[in-house]
């Protein structure tokens, strides 16, 4: 089995896992836990599938170059939140927050929305979550909220008439479109 075939098998396995989690999310009708598990697996499956398809059509040099670019982009995200030397006094509270979560939040939000979300997450993280829980729990808490925000923003961006958006709403949201009137 060549690397491309291995990646395709992995993508199929991840897609299968995502499908199971998708069903479980519907069965339990709970938002928080199944949604985050489904989200992570769906992103992973989608990414692996894209990479596998891409690799199947490119030479090994191009693949190497792509992997290096992806690694650099990921390192950029990881470094984004931890660049404490660039923070002024008012941003000192940021130095304790998980850099990856903060980087991802900055990637998926803009302007005032980013400022208020960052403020809320940083405030609750520093005042309630980090002092009362383990570092791992606190970091997972932060990342989970950022991922849920990313999924909601992504689903919203897909548009009201998109079938995929409806699928996201059915699994991750409350089943209603934005602006829907309450049921009679």
């Amino acid at each position, binding site marked *: 089995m060549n690397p491309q075939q291995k990646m395709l098998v992995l993508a199929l396995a991840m897609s299968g896992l995502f499908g199971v989690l998708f069903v479980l999310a519907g069965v339990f*009708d709970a938002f928080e836990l199944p949604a985050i598990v489904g989200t992570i697996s769906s992103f992973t499956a989608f990414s692996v599938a894209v990479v596998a398809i891409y690799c199947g059509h490119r030479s090994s040099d191009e693949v190497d170059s792509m992997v290096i670019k992806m690694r650099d982009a990921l390192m950029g995200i990881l470094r984004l939140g931890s660049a404490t030397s660039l923070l002024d006094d008012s941003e000192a509270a940021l130095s304790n927050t998980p850099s990856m979560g903060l980087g991802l939040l900055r990637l998926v939000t803009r302007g*005032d929305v980013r400022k*208020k979300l960052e*403020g809320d997450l*940083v405030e609750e993280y520093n005042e309630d979550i980090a002092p009362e829980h383990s570092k791992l729990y606190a970091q997972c808490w932060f990342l989970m909220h950022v991922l849920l925000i990313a999924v909601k923003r992504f689903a919203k961006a897909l548009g009201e008439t998109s079938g995929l958006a409806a699928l996201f709403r059915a699994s991750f949201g409350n089943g209603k479109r934005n602006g829907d009137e309450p049921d009679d």
Partner: protein
Amino acid sequence: MKSNLISRDMEVLGAVRRLRGTGYGVNLRKEIAKVTGRMMSYATLYDVLERLEKDGLIVGRMAEPTPARAGRPKQLFTVTGVGEKAYSTALATMQSFAPQAIPAGGGKLA
């Protein structure tokens, strides 16, 4: 099976109403948890807040940045007149389905 019949919109609107103009992300989540017993994610909370604001039921204003929030401002929400009316109407509708009087000793309802 759906176990919670109160919509998220009602929960968020109720929390904004209770906090009387001081509600923002963090304390709104805590207020909702205090009443319902479960935490709402920030993604859902802001999704609902944006929808309520778009419908004119609440209005948001940016407050001064604080050091605890790494210099990021809070967005404080207040219920508008339309929001108060919608909330009262929703509550009245629910109450209209309640039995007129509960029999003494918790007897069987007609």
